């Protein structure tokens, strides 16, 4: 009868140890699964976060570029005429050339009209007088050249101011885009790297759970073996 009790008791002990070990293994495996799932979750949320940042960053770049491009468009029409005025004034002043073209003809025309009008018109019947009058008209036109160059330089100054505005607009535009990209990159990096401690923790948690499962299994085996060893001792020991 005592042997039966020992067998029963040993069986119950071993069974209980194995059952507990299984439950502990299952718990540890559950923790491991949860840790893996969570790591995937965290990685996915990190990807989603940095995708959001990237998308909004692209929109921010477009918005900044659009503001810069429109601002440029508003000021650009002043630049080219200013450049032309500066080039012409520069060339005219350095070469000492007189006014040419339509303005020269306009001024000379005024001088010749005055000569052709009463009471001087009769004088122009003489060819030498006519030639002298033409020469005088040229001289008059030449006399207004410095004043005209000043007008050109004033236009060049206006163009230069616009060019300065556009240059600053462009510089700010480039800076702004650079800032957006670098800040976006920093945020994306933070979104990704910020998860690392969490991922590491989860990975180590999963590893610990795995170890615990192993230990639980070993302990369960040891307890079962101990029970069986006890039983063997009882049965095979001296009567």
């Amino acid at each position: 009868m005592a042997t039966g009790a020992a067998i029963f008791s040993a069986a119950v002990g071993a069974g209980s140890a194995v059952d507990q070990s299984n439950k502990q293994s299952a718990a540890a495996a559950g923790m491991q699964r949860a840790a893996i799932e969570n790591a995937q979750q965290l990685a996915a949320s990190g990807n989603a976060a940095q995708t959001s940042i990237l998308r909004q960053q692209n929109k921010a770049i477009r918005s900044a570029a659009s503001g810069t491009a429109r601002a440029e468009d508003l000021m650009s029409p002043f630049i080219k005429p200013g450049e032309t005025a500066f080039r012409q004034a520069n060339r005219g002043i350095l070469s000492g050339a007189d006014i040419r073209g339509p303005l020269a003809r306009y001024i000379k025309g005024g001088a010749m009209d005055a000569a052709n009008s009463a009471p001087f018109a009769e004088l122009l019947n003489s060819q030498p007088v006519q030639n002298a009058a033409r020469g005088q008209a040229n001289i008059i036109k030449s006399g207004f050249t410095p004043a005209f160059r000043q007008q050109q330089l004033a236009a060049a100054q206006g163009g230069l101011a616009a060019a300065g505005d556009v240059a600053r607009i462009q510089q700010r535009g480039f800076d702004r885009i650079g800032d957006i990209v670098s800040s976006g990159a920093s945020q994306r990096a933070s979104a990704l790297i910020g998860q690392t401690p969490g991922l590491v923790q989860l990975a180590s948690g999963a590893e610990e759970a795995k170890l615990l499962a192993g230990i639980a299994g070993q302990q369960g085996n040891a307890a079962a073996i101990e029970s069986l060893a006890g039983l063997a001792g009882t049965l095979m020991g001296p009567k």
Partner: protein
Amino acid sequence: MGFFDSVLSFAEDIPYFEDVTASGISPFLVGGNDEDGNPINPYAPPPQKIRNNKLKTDLGAFNTPGEVSGVQGAYSLDNLIRTRTPLATDLLKQGAAFAEDTSRQGFREARGLLRGFDRPDATREQNALLGLLGADRQQQAINNIPVSEFDAELQRRQRETLARGAAATGDLGSGFGLQQAQNLGGAQRFETYQNRLAELEPLAATSRSVRSTLAGMEEARGARGAQIRTGLGTQLANIRLGAAAPIIQANMQQASLSGLQGIAQSQQQGQVASQLAGLAGQFFTPSTPQTVQTVQTTQPPVSAGKITPGGY
């Protein structure tokens, strides 16, 4: 095409990450619509409607993103986050869209006020008169210089005065008189030309100034839009990341609870079994202790770990 125009088209080509990440992202994390209004996950529950508040102010009425309708109780954390995440992201996007619209509206209204002062005709005529747009345009502009009746009369009288002076000094038929007349004629033309340029200058300057102001406003509008978008990106990212934390915690808690429950059950069962074993031991133990004592006297001491019948 300028650099910034090329950026506008380039930005469209930057690949998004959704193709890479879509399969790996839990549906509740990518619920709602993307920034273009398309559903990120077509299988996700449709986002609930967010009612707009009518807000009346001195600047007019605004439809601000208002209370969120249709927020229901959740039966699980997943469900709660699945429901709330798209609502939160939509609310953020609506807030950003509202900020952008308001900024745009403010810009439009301000531009409307300034636009009336932006007349490029004066600048164009000035440029043409200076010969900056070519000889033909300069000729045309000079021909079209308006001369008022007053100026025409003034010039006529100047010429008359000159002629009278020449007559008085006896220079009327002389070369000197002719030269004086020619000088006056040329000067009058250049004066007409200069007066026209001077007349146009305040108009052109106003146009330049208004354009400079408008350029500043355009730039500020673009920068503001960029700021709103950058902020939105950060906030959306926070929501995406923030949604993961409670889920992770809940998952771990659930796993831990479920494991502990299993272990506790097992321990309970073990205790019951152990009690049963004890009971069985008592029940089946022999009732003659002498036999055991007799056995014990002839036996070596029982080693530890062995079952010792007799209740010792």
